[in-house]
């Protein structure tokens, strides 16, 4: 038991754990995380099985990584607690130094003689310390005064606060991991109402817009959402990236967008090569068949692709869901007989791929295409997030105290012999040696100069 305690109190364990966590974290960035088993099989070959067995494919959520973090947390708790007690003692019940030797062995120290008696010297010393905001303690013998002055003692506890902050952040992470969830709400059209997950209210998408920069790239996606409680509107907010909606513990983010291309409505111009006077524009949806002219001819659209490309097998497919190269597959009919079919392109009107049983005298152009947009809203419940912010605040406060608010401590012994007083004093300040040295020198000069 004692050995176990000693194991956890050792700083060596912190160092070893830090190094292990650093190395394993690096490993996690070298192996792509959370991919499909097939992908690992393709890229890692025979190693794939080993990776999965060791949970290297979801390293940061693996049993052993979390166990490492737990061990680290335990180590932090024990190390902090064992060091806390001496610090509290140093602050609230400090021991006054009575050995001249140990004062003179401090990093900064001085000894000199003053031509005034003990109480005068002491008062002057105290005045100087008080003026510089030192908290003082003293003890008096017959001809000796022992002095201890401290300031910014909170600086000692900076590291403890940092550790506390870290533990709270870890606790927040665990809380998020256990009690949080994420769910995508896909609004496929404006006006649609969806139930908020694990909550008693509904959401309605009032409006969805994409704003573009003049060069065509996306500036912003904006979804106007209304919260409905028992079918009554409660509040309406336009959410965009970086500006989520928060309601009753759930936060809603703009996380995706797209077009319902399978339901696109198109405008197709039909012309006859041998009759320049003939021109007709047809509006039709994907899957629809419409007649044109007066000879009983019809055309239909069977497919629409927003970003047409031919794959390796020479099949038409779409490269993305963005309308980079919109194309429609058109079929021409005479009665029930199909006379031609082929692709026409919005951006390349001259490059139609029409072929059929007979040479057709028609020329078709894809004039315009439109599809309703859908908006994906991510609903997030994260019960750990407030712990994270509290932890961060403590962490930063701790850093401030530890690095920018260093404790200063002055110890002194004043000894009277024959009406004169010998002053022996020294000081320590771990993190601001130069600044403290300057203050120390000031105190000394004013003390020597005074009468």
């Amino acid at each position: 038991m004692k050995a176990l305690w000693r194991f956890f109190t050792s700083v060596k364990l912190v160092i070893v754990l830090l190094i292990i966590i650093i190395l394993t974290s690096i490993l996690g960035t070298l192996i792509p995380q959370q991919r499909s088993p097939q992908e690992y099989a393709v890229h890692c070959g025979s190693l794939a099985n080993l990776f999965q067995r060791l949970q290297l494919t979801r390293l940061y959520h693996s049993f052993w990584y979390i166990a490492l973090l737990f061990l680290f947390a335990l180590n932090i708790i024990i190390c902090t607690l064992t060091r806390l007690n001496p610090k509290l003692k140093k602050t609230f019940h400090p021991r006054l130094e009575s050995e001249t030797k140990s004062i003179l062995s401090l990093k900064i120290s001085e000894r000199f003689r003053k031509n005034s008696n003990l109480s005068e010297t002491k008062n002057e010393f105290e005045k100087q310390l008080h003026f510089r905001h030192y908290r003082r303690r003293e003890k008096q013998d017959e001809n000796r005064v022992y002095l201890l002055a401290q300031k910014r003692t909170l600086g000692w506890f900076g590291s403890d606060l940092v550790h506390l902050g870290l533990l709270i952040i870890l606790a927040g992470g665990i809380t998020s991991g256990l009690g949080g969830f994420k769910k995508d709400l896909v609004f496929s059209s404006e006006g649609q109402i969806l139930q908020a997950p694990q909550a008693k209210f509904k959401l309605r998408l009032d409006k969805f817009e994409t704003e573009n920069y003049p060069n065509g790239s996306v500036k912003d996606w904006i979804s106007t959402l209304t919260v409905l409680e028992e079918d009554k509107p409660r509040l309406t907010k336009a959410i965009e990236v970086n500006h989520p909606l928060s309601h009753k513990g759930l936060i809603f983010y703009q996380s995706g967008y797209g077009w319902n291309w399978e339901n696109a409505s198109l405008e197709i111009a039909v012309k006859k090569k041998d009759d320049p006077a003939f021109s007709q524009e047809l509006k039709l949806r994907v899957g629809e068949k419409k007649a044109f002219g007066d000879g009983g001819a019809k055309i239909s659209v069977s497919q629409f692709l927003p970003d047409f490309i031919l794959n390796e097998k020479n099949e038409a497919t779409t490269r993305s869901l963005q309308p980079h190269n919109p194309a429609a597959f058109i079929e021409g009919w005479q009665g029930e007989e199909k006379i031609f079919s082929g692709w026409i392109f919005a951006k390349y009107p001259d490059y139609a791929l029409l072929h059929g049983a007979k040479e057709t005298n028609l020329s078709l152009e894809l004039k315009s295409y439109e599809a309703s947009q859908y908006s994906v809203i991510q609903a997030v419940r994260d019960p750990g997030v407030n712990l994270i912010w509290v932890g961060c605040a403590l962490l930063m406060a701790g850093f401030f105290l530890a690095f920018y608010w260093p404790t200063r401590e002055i110890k002194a012994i004043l000894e009277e012999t024959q009406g004169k007083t010998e002053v022996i004093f020294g000081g320590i300040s771990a993190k601001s040696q130069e600044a403290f040295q300057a203050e120390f020198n000031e105190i000394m000069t004013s003390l020597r100069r005074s009468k």
Partner: protein
Amino acid sequence: MSESTLFLIAFVLYIVSAVFYFSCLFSKKENLAKIGYFFAFLGLIVHTLALIMRTVESGHAPFTNMYESLSLFAWASILAYVIIEITFKIRNAGAYFMLIVIALMALASSPLMPKEAMPLVPALQSYWLWLHVSVTLLGEAFFAVAFITSIMYLAADTKEKKGKKTGLSSAKLDSISYRSIAIGFPIFTLGGLVFGMIWASKAWGSYWSWDPKEVWSLITWLVFALYLHTRIVMGWKGRRAAIIAILGFLAALFTYFGVNYLLAGLHSYAYA
């Protein structure tokens, strides 16, 4: 005057500064280093103007592509150097420091870096872009100072062991590395991790996603935590401390550049 001219002038001033610093190093005339410092400071002012101009022209923070962020990193490094120089008077370090700055500026002005300001993608339109990136960079600039002084420490230590005298004593260099890290570590924590988490939670709906850039900034943080614990609690100084400081800065550098090019993730949109 255009932003690119100002950038070029700053670049030239940094080179002039480096020339003076190096001639000081070889001729041991203190005054040359003072002139070097003067040019570095002048360069900093011109560089500041260039960054302001870019901000005004593009209408957003000047660190949304590689050119901008290299330029800003060079700027932050000079700023950190000036602060350290004022506090500790370490003229000799200037020569090596200017080398890093010049390398950053040269990289930024290479024709491979896309320079035109692009409109911001939706996720970057937030004041957290300013807070997150600039504070992180400032913290990393102090790590850069520690990196330089640690390398100088290793050189000085080797010399001193052979009984030769060095311009700056190894003990002083060791102390400056430590002090730079002590200043930089809280700043890096605030900008890189805390502000990063706040912004991530606003933009992505999750304060931590184990994205490679997040993991690498955590790694950087842990390396410097290791530095501080080995130093403060276990009393590691000198060579071992210097090596950890060097590794820490390399991790920071990898977080900053390497992740964008080598590892894909959520942050990859930031540097097209």
